[in-house]
Every structure is written in structure tokens, then in C-alpha cells.
């Protein structure tokens, strides 16, 4: 009797596990299909080229040009990465090669907490600190006028949110560099910094690129914090102090109205599809690089 009960339990657990596996494999496919299906309407009427490269945005008239949004997204993502890159690289090198274990013991929780803070909190902080800072100090410094709600503010807030994410990957990447190579360089008389520059950085270059690739795909989809500080004005920004309107913010801001117009609904799902495809491509490329790096060793 007991044996059969065990068998039944086994069978049940196997079925459960298979279902879970199936679910995970089916999920990305389901997301792609549902977004594609929903955005098919707008793709059919406007054509993908027009959607991507037209800058006329008149939802009520059925004209959906995503160009301004894509440009805003690209600018903010680029700025975020450029600002965050030196901080992440320098801190990662310091924590892996210079800092003591005690320091890592202090910094790891700091990084974890920064990673855990919800994006809406970063948004509030951005509105309170970064927006006035860019509006009152940075913009006049460069001779522009700005409310502070700008591409630059979005980039700065995004950069700060990216720090814990990219930093963690970079630390992992540096740890895969074999210690012998680093030590061999030291033993030949190179200074520590020289060895880092010529051995560690060179050796882990694909890993560094993929860390920023993953950061890029994270940055591209960040919604609420950026939405709160970026101004949300449709138009192609002319300088960094102009407001922008990135793709995720477009989706998040219009979820209420879109239901009334089927074409608008479809257009927003197209925006989600762009995000999905871009993020998946960058993720895959970066993961591929990491796998390549691991295999080489």
C-alpha cells in the first residue's frame, strides 16, 4: 500500500515538474506571440518602416510615428550607460583587487540594498534632487533654460539605478580572470595598476562588454523612475536639457485611454513589442559573450 502511494506521489511530482518546465519554455514565446498578435493591426495599416521612422504622433488621427520615442529612449539609455560606466568599472576593480574582505563585507549589503530599492523610490528621489539640480544649476551652466525635467535628469537617475546591476556582473566577471595570470604579471615587475590594465581588463574585455550589454537592455526598459523625471513631452529632443518621452513611459502613461481606440491599443502593444525584441536581442548577445568567455577558460 505504502509503495503505491509513493509511486502516485512520484508521478504527481513528475507531472508538476514537467508542467513547470513547459511553462518556463512557453512563456517567452507566449509573450512574443501575444504582443505580435496585438500589434499586427497597426503594423498592417502603417507599415513597420513608417512606425519606426515617422515622427508624426497623432493617435486620434491614426498616425503613429515612434521615432521621437525611440530617439528619447536611445538618448536616455546612452547617457545612463556613459555616466554609470566609470563608476561601475572603478568600483568593481577596487572591490575585487584593492579592497579588503572587510570592505567587501560592508559594500556588498550596500550594493544589494541599492539593487533592491524600488524604482518608484528612485523616481521620488530624482524629482526631489536631480530635477532641481539639473534645472537650476546644470542647465544655466551650459547656457540653456530648462525646467529640470529633461533627458539629462532621466539619464542621471537611470545611471544610478544601473550601478548595482552592472557592478554585480562586473565583479563576477573580474573573478573569472585566473589569479595566476594576474600574479605572473606582478612577478614580472609590473605595478598593480599596470597588471589590471594590461591583464585583467584585456582578459575580461568580452565580459565587460556583455555586462554593459545587459545593463543596456535593463536601461532600455526602465519605466517609472525615468517617466517621473523625464518630462514626457512628445518631440525630438534637441539638447540634453529638453524633455523627452521614452517608449516605456509612453506605454505606462497611456494605458487608460488606449482601450477606447483599437488602433491606439495596437500601437502601444507595438511599443511593448519593440522593447521586448530589443531587450531579448541584447540579452542574448551578452549572454552569448559570457558563455564564450567561460568556454575559453
Amino acid at each position: 500500500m505504502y509503495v503505491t502511494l509513493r509511486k502516485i506521489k512520484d508521478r504527481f511530482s513528475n507531472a508538476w515538474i514537467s508542467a513547470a518546465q513547459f511553462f518556463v519554455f512557453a512563456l517567452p514565446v507566449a509573450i512574443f506571440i501575444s504582443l505580435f498578435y496585438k500589434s499586427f493591426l497597426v503594423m498592417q495599416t502603417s507599415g513597420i518602416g513608417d512606425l519606426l521612422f515617422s515622427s508624426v504622433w497623432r493617435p486620434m488621427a491614426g498616425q503613429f510615428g515612434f521615432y521621437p520615442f525611440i530617439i528619447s529612449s536611445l538618448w536616455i539609455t546612452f547617457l545612463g550607460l556613459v555616466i554609470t560606466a566609470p563608476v561601475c568599472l572603478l568600483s568593481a576593480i577596487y572591490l575585487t583587487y584593492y579592497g579588503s574582505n572587510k570592505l567587501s563585507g560592508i559594500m556588498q549589503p550596500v550594493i544589494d540594498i541599492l539593487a533592491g530599492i524600488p524604482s518608484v523610490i528612485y523616481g521620488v528621489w530624482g524629482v526631489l534632487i536631480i530635477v532641481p539640480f539639473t534645472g537650476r544649476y546644470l542647465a544655466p551652466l551650459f547656457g540653456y533654460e530648462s525646467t529640470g525635467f529633461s533627458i539629462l535628469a532621466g539619464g542621471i537617475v537611470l545611471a544610478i539605478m544601473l550601478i548595482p546591476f552592472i557592478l554585480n556582473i562586473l565583479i563576477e566577471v573580474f573573478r573569472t580572470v585566473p589569479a595566476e595570470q594576474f600574479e605572473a604579471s606582478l612577478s614580472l615587475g609590473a605595478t598593480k595598476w599596470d597588471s589590471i590594465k594590461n591583464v585583467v581588463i584585456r582578459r575580461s574585455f568580452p565580459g565587460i562588454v556583455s555586462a554593459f550589454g545587459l545593463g543596456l537592455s535593463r536601461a532600455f526598459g526602465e519605466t517609472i523612475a525615468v517617466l517621473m523625471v523625464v518630462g514626457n513631452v512628445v518631440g525630438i529632443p534637441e539638447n540634453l536639457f529638453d524633455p523627452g518621452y521614452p517608449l516605456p513611459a509612453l506605454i505606462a502613461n497611456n494605458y487608460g485611454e488606449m482601450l477606447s481606440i483599437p488602433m491606439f491599443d495596437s500601437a502601444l502593444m507595438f511599443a511593448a513589442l519593440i522593447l521586448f525584441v530589443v531587450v531579448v536581442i541584447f540579452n542574448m548577445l551578452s549572454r552569448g559573450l559570457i558563455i564564450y568567455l567561460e568556454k575559453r577558460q
Partner: protein
Amino acid sequence: MKIKKLEERFFYLLMILSTSFLAILLLFIVSIIIYKGLPSLSWEMLSQTPKGGYYLGREGGLLNAIVGSAYLASGAVILALSVSLPLSLAMNVHLRNNKRIINSIRLILDLLWGIPSVVYGAFGFTIMIYLGIKASLLAGIITVSVFILPIMVRAMDEVMKNVPFTLLESAFSLGSTKREVAFKVVTRQCFPGIITAVLLAFGRGIGDVAAVLFTTGYTDNIPTSLMDQTATLPLAVFFQLGSPIPEVQNRAYAAALILTIIILTISVVTRFLSRKYHKTRIN
């Protein structure tokens, strides 16, 4: 030679600066949230739902959002656990020798982990429309559970990977089936790690806006059934901050402070648990 020394000094200084910047940044963010939120935080905020004229600055509190967030995140965690636990157990017990499948599962999970929550929100929304459900607690729970699933599996997998194979082998040698090894040995051995993963996912779920924006709606009442609309804390921050009335804005800061306290508590508990876990682990 001198230039080299100078270069090293220079970069060493920059490194110290950027590392200390991280700690200062955290202190800065948290202290600004406390400074802004603390004056408006009161017992009324925590214990009452919005009353008439709340959004014009009159009486009421955030209880609807606090309870709503707790319901939403707990529901999502439980639902996600029903997929993530068997999956991560399977990856480390049943499929242990099948590297190819394990690697492809990990790749898919990494991919899912990278998908922005707003895309999950849009996906949840299309599913909702397809099934004919209205914006509700249930729709929110489903969306958030899908969104936190990869975070959970990843954290659990990380812990279960470290279970020594000899432990599994000795259990197998006593005649245990894979299920018994998975649920009775590995689960017990990794229990603190599983709790850590759950807390991590809970923190992610409670803090996210973009995924619930489409799916849970917003209401001043505490939800009484799964089909009710639900308010959440991050949405309360977001909506109230957009108000032109200073009193309402202050409440957004209070809501932000409550959310930050929840997240910080989770992080402290997680840290404590994983430290304890390292002490008791058999290795």
C-alpha cells in the same frame, strides 16, 4: 617611472572615490526619503483608508495601499513558488546530469529576468482582455508572479547548486526516489535559502509599478475578493506625487517612506537568514 606611479595614484584615488560614492549615495537616497516622509507619517496614515476629499488634502490614510500591496505581493509569491520550487528542484536533482537542458533553462530564465516589467504588464493586460477578466487583484497577482518567477528560480538555483552531491547520493543509496530526495532532503537543506529567495521576490513584487499599472487598477477600499481592484503602495506614491496639492504630495513621500522601510526590513532579514544559512550548511 614617475608617471606610472602618478597614474596608479590617480586611478587609486578615483577608485576610492567611486566606491565611497556608492555608500554615500545609499545614505543620501534613504535620508532624503526619511527627511521628506517622516513629517507626514502618522498613525492615521497607517491605519485608515482614504476618506472623502482625501485627494484634496483632507482626512484619510494609506491603509488601502498597504494592505493591497501585501495581498498582491503575497499572492504573487505563493503562485510563483508553485512553479519556481519544482523547477529549481528539478534542475538540481532530476536533471542534474542533463547539462544541456539545465543550461537552456538557465538561459531562458536569464532572458525572462531581463524583460522589463512594463512588457510583463502589457502581456498581462492582453491575457486579461483575452480571458475577459477586468483589472483586479487576481490579474495583478498573475502578472507579478510571472514577473518575479525568474528572480525566484535564480536565487533558489544558486543555493541548491551548492548542496553537496554526496548528500544526494547517500539519500539515493538508502532507496529514496528523486522526489523524496528533492522535497525531503534538498528542500530541507536549503530551507533558509528558499525563504531568502521568497523574500527577495516579495521585495521585487511589492516595489514594482509598471507590471501592476495595467492590471490591478486603483481603489480607495481594501479589496475583499480576488476580483476587486486593488491599490498598491508604489502606485500610491506615483499618483499622489502627481497631485498639485502639497498635502497630497506629502502623503506620497510618506508612502515612499513606508515602502522604503518595508524594503529595508526585507533586506535585513534576508541578510540575517543567509548568514545563518552559511553557518548551518553541511559542506
